[in-house]
């Protein structure tokens, strides 16, 4: 069953159309990754889910409740950790959590118990009683995550949770997210880190230009790209005739496709295989034909390849392209309530 359903979300900021009919289903208990370059519409989507922003049109259902009709009960079930951490510098971390607990109407005993639990779990003991103004980015993120989890939400929404974090904070956050998921919390996180999404997510949607352009498990997405990549060298420096012969041989094997000769790499061969189980067979064929195997490497397609396939550009290019067009200051000004 889907815990979260987004249907045909459309949202414009003035003349900028941020979402152009975004549809997404997040199954219950899933850790769902929303992958997209800068400006793809990730934050806009998550802000709509968190009831901060109303879409121009479309539907948002959180565990059967229409978020546009009954935002209050959606807020109760939802933990939202925004992209920019907003803390009160003058409060201590603990005071901020206490405030948060009161805003979610926990009774005092539960509240303090939860604060103690999360303080331990997120390793915040040493600094939780210090003022937030002195925290590093990683500390703020952890505190923000704790405040999103205080009321034990059914659905946790995280906007780029580990961007720019130190390794320690990142690993603390990752392990907590995994644990939460094991215990049944549904998590939706956005990222433009392939690595992060790939390491954590059961399911992924790639969004670009305000729309979902591909979705599925990381494996499914990669499979759609046609299996693993293999690079083969029969000798350290082969020649044209030899490589052509090898290519002919390889093309005759079932499950091998797109054999390409890479002249600039000493006539090595690049090919796609449907499955790793083909590899022994491939070695056999080569040995029988008395080709040596100088080097054979195999790699799974990365999500970067998936992204490239879906959009025709790499994530990096997409980011560079949009970076010049945005006025971040103006956006945050316009996003003010």
């Amino acid at each position, binding site marked *: 069953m889907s815990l979260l359903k987004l249907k045909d979300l459309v949202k414009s900021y003035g003349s900028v159309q941020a979402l152009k009919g975004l549809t997404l289903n997040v199954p219950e208990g899933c850790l769902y990754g929303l992958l997209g370059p800068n400006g793809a519409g990730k934050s806009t989507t998550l802000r709509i889910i968190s009831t901060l922003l109303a879409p121009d049109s479309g539907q948002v259902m959180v565990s059967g409740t229409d978020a546009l009709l009954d935002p209050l009960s959606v807020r109760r079930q939802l933990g939202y950790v925004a992209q920019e951490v907003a803390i009160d510098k003058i409060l201590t971390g603990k005071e901020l959590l206490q405030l948060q607990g*009161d*805003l979610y*109407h926990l*009774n005092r005993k539960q509240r303090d118990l939860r604060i103690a639990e999360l303080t331990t779990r997120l390793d915040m003991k040493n600094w939780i009683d210090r003022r937030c103004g002195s925290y590093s980015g990683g500390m703020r993120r952890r505190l923000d995550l704790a405040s999103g989890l205080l009321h034990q939400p059914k659905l946790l929404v995280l906007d780029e949770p580990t961007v720019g974090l130190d390794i320690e904070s990142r690993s603390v956050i990752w392990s907590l997210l995994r644990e939460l998921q094991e215990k049944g*919390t549904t998590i939706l996180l956005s990222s433009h880190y392939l690595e992060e999404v790939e390491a954590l997510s059961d399911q992924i949607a790639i969004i670009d230009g305000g729309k979902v352009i591909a979705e599925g498990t990381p494996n499914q997405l990669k499979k759609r790209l046609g299996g693993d990549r293999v690079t083969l060298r029969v000798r350290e420096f082969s020649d044209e005739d030899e490589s052509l012969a090898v290519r002919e041989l390889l093309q005759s094997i079932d499950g091998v496709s797109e054999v390409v000769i890479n002249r600039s790499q000493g006539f090595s061969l690049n090919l796609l295989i449907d499955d790793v189980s083909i590899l022994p067979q491939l070695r056999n064929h080569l040995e029988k034909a008395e080709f040596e195997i100088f080097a054979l490497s195999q790699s799974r397609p990365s999500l970067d390849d998936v992204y490239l396939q879906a959009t025709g550009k790499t994530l990096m290019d997409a980011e560079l392209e949009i970076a010049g067009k945005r006025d971040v200051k103006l956006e945050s000004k316009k996003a003010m309530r």
Partner: protein
Amino acid sequence: MSSFDITSTTQPLGRSYLSEITQETLALTKRLFLQLFRRPSTLIAGLLQPLIWLLLFGALFSNAPDDLMPGGISYGRFLGAGVIVFTAFSGALNAGLPVMFDREFGFLNRLLVAPLRSRSSIVFASIIYITVISFLQSFAIMATASFLGYGTPGLGGFVLVLATLLLLVFAVTALSLGLAFALPGHIELIAVIFVANLPLLFASTALAPISFMPTWLGWLAALNPLTFAIEPIRAAYSGSLDLGTVLLHAPYGDMTGYGCLRVLLVLTFGLFLLIRPLLNRKLA
């Protein structure tokens, strides 16, 4: 970690509307006070400034002829009410600033994502905070006034002071919060506060009675909300407190103490009603 249980539900059932609103309002109020106590300079300045006013302004006219002020009271005694009201007024006018900063820094979003039973809690918290501070300020002013020999308002007068301040603080806080949501940023808000503050002081009866003023200024003073708060409090300082007597000789006619309070009351509710749609829209 076995104690870390995600699945159990923590939503306490059957909590009443009122108790949830109280909880969130108190939590937000507590935050404002923590901010205040950790930046005590604002508090100290807020307490000292009116006392300096009282001391310096009171001294300015101490050798003036005895019958200068209406009713023959000393200028210091005349001034006390003005300082009390003006201090509360400027405090309340600043109420929107923390809210504006919360908007700008995105902290407001944290509140808007939370399942607040009513977002009026954000408004209530500001009102409570400002009211407590202006009460503290006026206690300090009244104590200093009595120390300087400018008299005391008496018990009935004391209650009257608090009630009047309550009305004024409500109205001005609502106005300031409305501005905090209507204006684009803190620079604009500070500009409005700056521009509104002193002219409203000078065009009121805080520093001088209407009889001292040219007609045009008299008109302004007689329409200025501050005047309607100042006159009843001044009456409490000038001896026997009788709100039925005429306190204000305005160009449009005489106003009794009750008349002044009634205007204040209407103004407070009027402003509240006027600003509510804006707050509701911004906080919807």
